[in-house]
């Protein structure tokens, strides 16, 4: 979605967002994306492990959402991700858009903990995304 206002886009918002993320102890998140997939019968029925690629993005900041505890419920977090960090990986992976990257992402790892993406929102300024906000929840422990 582009801004139709007659203003020249600048990278100010992206640089400001990156600076703010870094000043609040911005860290690195790893997106686990589906790698080379042979798309066989076995991979579609959970018989053959799909290969995964680890895609690091930074700076990111995790923040816990307002607690609304429910029996058996899991904590929800918001992951603030730098748009420049995402764009760098989109270019490196030769993808069409950030949405494509998120569509391929199965889980996000921050500080050794896996999170599942619930929803994705983007903040824009002057027609350019400067921050992605991922609503994530903690993934359960999987058997080794």
């Amino acid at each position, binding site marked *: 979605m582009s801004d139709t206002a007659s203003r020249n886009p600048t990278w100010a918002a992206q640089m400001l967002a990156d600076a703010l993320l870094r000043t609040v102890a911005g860290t690195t998140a790893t997106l686990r994306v*589906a790698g080379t997939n042979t798309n066989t019968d076995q991979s579609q029925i959970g018989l053959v492990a799909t290969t995964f690629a680890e895609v690091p993005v930074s700076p990111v900041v995790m923040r816990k959402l307002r607690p609304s505890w429910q029996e058996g419920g899991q904590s929800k977090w918001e992951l603030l991700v730098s748009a420049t960090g995402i764009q760098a990986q989109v270019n490196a992976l030769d993808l069409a858009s950030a949405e494509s990257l998120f569509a391929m992402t199965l889980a996000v790892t921050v500080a050794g903990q896996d999170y599942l993406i619930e929803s994705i929102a983007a903040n824009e300024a002057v027609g350019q995304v400067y921050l992605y906000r991922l609503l994530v929840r903690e993934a359960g422990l999987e058997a080794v």
Partner: protein
Amino acid sequence: MQNAKDSFYVALRTRLVAINPERTILLRAAVRPGILVEEAEAPFAQLPTDVFVLRWLGLGVDQDLPSTMVAEECEVLYSTLGTQSFGGLDRGRALSEMDEELVAMLTPFWTPKLNYTATPPAAMLTSVFWEEPVFAPITPVRDRLSRTARVVVYSYQEAGE
């Protein structure tokens, strides 16, 4: 019983390709026929639209037979928002199309049982067969129309299963 589940899915997927090759989904970086097994994919925050999702539910075992018979209940979930070119106003028609495709996919009501742990898949001695689907009413949630259909899938347990 896993062989029956696998054979049922692959049979429906193969039939869907013949019925409507245009129904596809981009999943795990691959374009596939528009049908998937929920338990074999990453958890979905919201189920994808315009594809069939197989969810395995109930299980029953009858051991008072020469061979043990297993009955497994499969719920097929599907939903649509219609098409963008129609502004979603064709979502009823799109869901009807999926209803018809599901009925066609389930016909005939049997398929050979294969063991997909072998490469290539090994044919087994018995077949997998199922009942007619039981369709639930449409569930409209804002612009999304959803429906589920339940099918009981039967198979005989063979030696080694």
